[in-house]
């Protein structure tokens, strides 16, 4: 990344304690530590008065402005938790004389998806699938696609456990070309669809996310027969078995809306509950047979006398 070498060093390693002041609105933010780094910018934990927040900073003014546009648009779809809340937008005139664009958003605390499943086990799979699908449904209905849907862009916040989105940089208007993506989760990379923003693009990535929980080392793309390669990966995971048909449909792009997929996932969850009920029901049947036998016996004995 030769072109960006110079600025990158500065904006990706702002030392803790640095005070960032907005050029236009003058709000102050004390940098605490780096939270992460993406294609567009770097995210820091910062302090504003006694409020803790996340601050994303970059020299890519245009891309940053587009992200702010998305966060503002998501505000309209609120009432739910689509992405972090936007708190401030401004420029920073750095000591090196360059101007960087930054925005401040709500700091979402939580565990990574991998951490969560390592601790809590696979029984949460169905719930998170439904939660993600519900959020995606709202997003899609508002005319957007998440785009860069991947494990790194998700967090699980606690009490009660809820899956949250932390980076909306890839959110793209439906019908346009996906703005930002990560190869492993991109159906175009797998040769299983276009990079046009449509609900099925997100559903493919969602299937890969659930697959990745069980393949944290990931796997590389074969040259041919890629769909059946992914199918085999799904089939090898016992915990994914109930969801295998749904995940496979997501990979082949069968669903045109998250709602269709959500309904099928719910059906699977409930039919599993019914199955366990039926098992208890069998014991009841056995008991009933005993009661029946006893009653026949007692009738027989009463007939004898």
């Amino acid at each position: 990344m030769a072109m960006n070498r110079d600025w990158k060093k500065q904006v990706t390693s702002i030392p803790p304690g640095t005070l960032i002041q907005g050029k236009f609105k003058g709000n102050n933010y004390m940098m605490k530590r780096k939270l992460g780094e993406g294609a567009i910018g770097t995210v820091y934990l910062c302090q504003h008065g006694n409020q803790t927040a996340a601050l994303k900073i970059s020299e890519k003014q245009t891309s940053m402005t587009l992200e702010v546009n998305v966060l503002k648009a998501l505000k309209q779809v609120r009432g739910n938790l689509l992405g972090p809340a936007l708190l401030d937008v401004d420029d920073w005139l750095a000591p090196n004389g360059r101007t960087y664009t930054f925005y401040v958003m709500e700091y979402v605390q939580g565990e990574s998806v991998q951490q969560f499943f390592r601790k809590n086990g696979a029984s949460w799979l169905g719930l998170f699938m439904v939660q993600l699908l519900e959020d995606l449904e709202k997003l899609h209905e508002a005319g957007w696609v998440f785009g860069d849907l991947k494990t790194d862009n998700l967090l699980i916040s606690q009490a009660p456990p809820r899956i949250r989105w932390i980076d909306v940089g890839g959110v793209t208007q439906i019908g346009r070309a996906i703005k930002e993506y990560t190869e492993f989760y991109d159906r175009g990379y797998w040769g299983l669809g276009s990079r046009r923003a449509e609900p099925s693009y997100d559903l493919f990535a969602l299937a890969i996310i659930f697959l990745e929980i069980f393949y944290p080392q990931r796997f590389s793309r074969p040259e041919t027969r890629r769909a059946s390669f992914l199918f085999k990966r799904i089939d090898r995971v016992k915990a994914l078995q109930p969801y295998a048909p749904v995940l496979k449909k997501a990979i082949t792009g069968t669903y045109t809306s998250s709602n269709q997929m959500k309904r099928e996932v719910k059906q699977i969850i409930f039919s599993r509950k019914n199955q366990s009920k039926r098992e208890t029901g069998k014991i009841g049947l056995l008991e009933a047979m005993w009661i029946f036998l006893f009653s026949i016996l007692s009738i027989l004995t009463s007939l004898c006398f």
Partner: protein
Amino acid sequence: MKKGTLRQILLLTDGCSNQGEDPAATAALAFEQGIAVNVIGILDHDESEESHGLTEVEEIALSGGGVSQLVYSEALSQTVQMVTKQAMNETLQGFVNQELKQILGKDQSLEDIEPEKRGEIVEVVEELGETTDLEVLILLDTSASMHHKLQMVKAALIDLSISLNARTGKNRFAIYSFPGKRKNIQKVLDWTPKLDSISSVFPKITSGGITPTGPALREAIYQFGKKSLLRSFRHGDEPGLEETGY
């Protein structure tokens, strides 16, 4: 509103030119003609980003009004599409900035507008990037050292076609390699909207010794010119390439 066509040359190389004119000067000429020159320098694993043979990469893109990037061949796919899109956006942003200067006064740019209010302007650029037509001439260095990288290049170009064809705007690609047989450049693939077909044409590439980047760029500019000339012959007095759309 009339939509124009953006034109780009995408130069993929792994080293320094060693024959003919200065490629940076030729790139400046291309920029003059409204063609942006993007350069991707493909690194070998024993090379660092500071490798001085590759400083030329930055110089060519700088004078060609395009974007440059050094990259190891594994990351080629993402880089190729990122560089192409970034260059498109920069060109479009340039147009919009000019318009802004006319509206706001000549010392005003996007930076002087409050970030909260930049949104709508940037949205215009985004919209243009999505809908504008694009022509990319891929100029591929096939000198000996590139030989083992060509497989990755092929994958990256197919990937580029997937990314750009997800847009609403039309795309056209052509691939030329250099050095050619007794010529500066060699046609690999004529103008086409999709690059899926390159699997069959790629083995045609033969690797040679010299790297005449400058002369190759000049030929590439000529290929753009020739095409619009042909078109104006075919369409008689219809408006030229610049005014396709509505």
